[in-house]
């Protein structure tokens, strides 16, 4: 197979923000009735003006730093003009790297699982358009139905160089990026449509074709597989691939020629006169750095240097929450770190998935208690139950006064005498069962083994 070249333009919603990019409307639009989070600004009413969300710049900078990109000291907003009913002003406020403009940041990179480095050309801020719905299909609907709740939501666009050479690499890029985003709290997986990709594919050095609006890593891979196949077929038939924009049809899993916007080449970029430039100072970068903490790679390295094996380290480092718990336990009681890594990577990971648990408790003393007494917990089932209790935020006390056989002897004798009337006529096995019930209640399951041994001894003696 001839070489394919893939470049991505990844649009990420800054889901950690509470308001839109240029107005104070709530950004919480999913599952809301249409057109509730709207105002004169995000519906483009005459006379309205944009006002930049300070936190949007900070959140975007987190991603910039995680992708090793260089922020420009001064960047500008531009108007990108095209007519479409989901775009209320018929221009999108975005950033531009030509015509005197500078985007938020440039020249970053991301390392794929196979060790290859993908260059990131630029990262910029822009606003999301509204959404269009149709009754029935787009082709047959007599009109469009427009919802501007999404209009003006803050996006960052991450533009890569055409450095990926297979559908798998592109998928890996999106997956790695998703992890990096979650490292800074931008959990795109929890929000439908929060990560959308425009995929540029060229086959055998031919013209590049842009496939717009692919959602999620798996679909990115599928879209490239299809598009590479389509271009390969054309190439082999001697048909020239033309530079064009296509759309990804998720249902049919094919790309289709997009007839949406005829005058794409004529975006008529110009600086947005209503917005001052964005300035990124050293102190702002420092502030953002302080908020970020480390990357997955840094976490992984730390786990390995703690002597945790690669498999566990990989699992824990990929989830910032798990790693944070590990760190806290390590601080609490260093000797517990190996056990903590085990439990976090296995039992706790399992429970997170099984019960869709969103956040782990801040307070890890309950978990420390469980880990300290872990060996005494008689069976795996009880251990998991304790862990679940901690994850649910309940108080955990592992009642393990490890009792010695001698201590138990008196207690058993006492229990027998107290219940003598009830057991005197019972046969051995019934008697045993009755007494065990009482004793387990008193000493806990964790002492079952020693209780069984001691009770057997006592009953045999008194027989």
């Amino acid at each position, binding site marked *: 197979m001839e070489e394919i070249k893939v470049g991505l333009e990844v649009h990420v919603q800054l889901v950690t923000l509470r308001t839109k990019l240029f107005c104070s409307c709530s950004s919480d639009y999913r599952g809301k009735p*249409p057109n509730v*989070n709207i*105002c004169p600004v995000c519906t483009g009413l005459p006379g309205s003006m944009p006002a930049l969300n300070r936190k949007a710049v900070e959140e975007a900078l987190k991603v910039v730093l995680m992708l090793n990109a260089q922020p420009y000291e001064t960047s500008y907003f531009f108007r990108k003009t095209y007519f479409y009913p989901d775009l209320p002003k018929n221009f999108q406020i975005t950033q531009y790297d030509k*015509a005197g403009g500078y985007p938020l940041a440039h020249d970053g990179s991301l390392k794929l699982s196979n060790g290859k480095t993908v260059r990131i050309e630029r990262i910029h801020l822009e606003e999301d358009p509204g959404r269009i719905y149709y009754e029935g299909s787009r082709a047959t609907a007599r009109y469009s139905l427009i919802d501007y709740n999404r209009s003006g939501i803050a996006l960052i666009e991450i533009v890569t160089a055409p450095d990926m050479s297979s559908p798998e690499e592109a998928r890996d890029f999106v997956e790695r990026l998703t992890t990096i985003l979650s490292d800074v709290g931008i959990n795109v997986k929890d929000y439908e449509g929060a990560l959308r990709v425009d995929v540029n594919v060229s086959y055998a050095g031919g013209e590049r074709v842009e496939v717009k609006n692919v959602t999620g890593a798996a679909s990115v891979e599928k879209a490239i597989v299809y598009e590479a196949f389509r271009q390969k077929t054309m190439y082999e038939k001697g048909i020239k691939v033309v530079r064009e924009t296509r759309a990804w049809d998720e249902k049919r899993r094919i790309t289709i020629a997009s007839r949406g916007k005829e005058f794409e080449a004529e975006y008529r970029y110009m600086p947005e006169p209503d917005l*001052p430039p964005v300035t990124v100072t050293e102190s702002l970068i420092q502030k953002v750095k302080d908020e970020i903490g480390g990357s997955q790679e840094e976490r992984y390295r730390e786990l390995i240097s703690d002597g945790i094996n690669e498999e566990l380290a990989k699992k824990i480092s990929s989830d910032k929450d798990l790693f944070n718990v590990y760190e806290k336990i390590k601080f609490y009681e260093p000797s517990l770190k190996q056990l903590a890594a085990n439990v976090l990577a296995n039992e706790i990971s399992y429970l997170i998935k099984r019960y869709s648990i969103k956040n782990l408790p801040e307070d890890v003393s309950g978990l420390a208690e469980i880990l300290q007494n872990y060996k005494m917990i008689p069976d795996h089932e009880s251990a998991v139950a304790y862990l679940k209790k901690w994850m649910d935020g309940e108080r955990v006390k592992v009642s393990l006064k490890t009792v010695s056989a001698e201590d138990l002897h008196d207690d058993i004798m006492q229990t027998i005498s107290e219940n003598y009337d009830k057991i005197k006529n019972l046969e051995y096995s019934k008697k045993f069962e009755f007494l065990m019930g009482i004793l387990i209640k008193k000493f806990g399951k964790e002492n079952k083994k020693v209780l069984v041994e001691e009770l057997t001894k006592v009953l045999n003696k008194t027989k």
Partner: protein
Amino acid sequence: MRYSINKLSKLSMLKISKEEEKMIAKKVQALGELLEKLDTVEPPKEAFVLAPEGEHKRDDVPVQFDSDEIIKVFNNVKERYLKGPKTL
């Protein structure tokens, strides 16, 4: 200076009637003559943007606008959706 009224009206999505055409052509011509003076200006050595001054950002705190007031402005509404033209 090369432009065609026809192409510009298409790009700007403006329909121009027969009656208007002459008058608009005259106005565009007059504006075009003003622009031509710029041909003699030394182009800037480096492209730059003349942006408004100052630092001006807003806090990330939601403020609810009465969206029903916006719905009232809309031309055609169906169940709170704005009814727009076909997009094909």
